[in-house]
């Protein structure tokens, strides 16, 4: 696992590893079609802020969330392609995540 060495600024979603089922926002991403670094587009359902994740495809409940090519937790509900993936629909496979509900949603 390693971060990409060079990132194109014109595409605001990043796929860190070929096997990932989530994409990372490299800036504010509005709802609608968004370009993926390395090729392709995806229909983003709701705007997300820098550093947040978007589902690259439909993810079933209990399925592993894959980022950097490794599992970073499991889906707790069905997640549509283009949907924001965060503490409201995934959980750690180790210890519970502590978040303040006022600030955790990443919607602006």
């Amino acid at each position, binding site marked *: 696992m*390693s971060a990409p060495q060079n990132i194109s600024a014109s595409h605001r979603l990043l796929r860190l590893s070929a096997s990932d089922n989530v994409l*990372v926002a490299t800036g504010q991403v509005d709802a609608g079609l968004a370009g993926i670094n390395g090729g392709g587009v995806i229909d983003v359902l709701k705007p997300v802020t820098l*550093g947040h*994740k978007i589902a690259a495809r439909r993810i079933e409940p209990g399925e592993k969330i894959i980022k950097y090519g490794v599992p970073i937790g499991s889906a707790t509900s069905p997640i549509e392609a283009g949907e924001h993936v965060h503490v409201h629909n995934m959980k750690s496979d180790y210890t519970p995540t502590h978040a303040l509900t006022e600030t955790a949603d990443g919607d602006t």
Partner: protein
Amino acid sequence: MRGYLRADGRKGIRNHVVVAYLVECAHHVAREVAMPFRAQGAQVIGFPGCYPNAYAQQMMERLCTHPNVGAVLLVSLGCESFDRFHLAKIVADSGRPVETVVIQRVGGTRISIGRGQQWIARQIEALAAAETVPMDVSELVVGTVCGGSDGTSGLTGNPAVGLAFDRLVAAGAACIFEETGELIGCEAIMADRASTPELAVELRRSVEKAASYYATLGYGSFAAGNAEGGLSSIEEKSMGAYAKSGSSQIAGLIKPGDIPPRGGLYLMDVVPDGEVRFGFPNINDTAEIVEMMASGAHVTLFVTARGSVVGSAISPVIKVCANPETYERMADDMDVNAGRVLAGTPLAEVGDEIYDLTLAVASGAQTKSEELGHAEFVLTYKSFEPIGPACLPR
């Protein structure tokens, strides 16, 4: 690069006078003693507890004999359990000037402050005239921590520090990464980088210990701001944090206060041994920086994304800002803008900048937090077993 040569052979990149309080009750006097000499390098460290603790005693001994420290004033209330006699002996044996002011003996706050300031004034004068000797990159100990992480940390700041670490290790420096509680989920890929199969077992065990410790506490090493910035789980945060270690072979595993015996990459196991007690392993980022210093770190590379402002007593902190939006708001506190990777700057360029800046700071350049007067310090209770024989390079 030039350094201050100490009797144990190590060299310092700063020449601080440290004022150390040995219980919280002596903290105010220590602060007042140091205050007028802040700009000349007087800094306050200390241990607040009144109950004895072998870890805290060892940490204070290591910190008071850190290569960046040239002289030490101990401030004791008088009735605390801390072994001030042993600490004073360790400092004296290291060839450094040391003095103890016992508040109850000398007659209270005012007279203690006066005596302490008189002694500090003399030391400042002597240290200003101290000679320096040539110093090589291979004599540096560099730590790295991250704090206020978010979804950008693992894309920009942490991998950039990893590249700087690779260059430092290749040049012979000792580099330390840590917080086993933030390596949860990375234990397998990390163990594959161990220099020996025995060390691989130790690396894996240290993360398993952290996972079980945090599970008992009910929280991972994860703050609300991490989630605000897009991180959803401890293992996601871990993958980003792990990137700080770069790609060198891992030479050893140390615990706080163990000095790396030679150059190479080391993991610091910061989670206490035995049953869970005394609370969270490291209550904040400063506790991590302090443990790096106790293991001899001359400088700490601190990757932040939400925007930490801290520096440190004793060893300068280089703040690498992973998030470009944060950098725009808080540039005054940040030494490196790693977030520009998201706008197309090659990661290697930022890695080289961090490497060059580390050498510049070691040569005397002031970091942003030093310019702003940051000199944070915290030390709490812990307990550790000594490291096993498989942990250090032979």
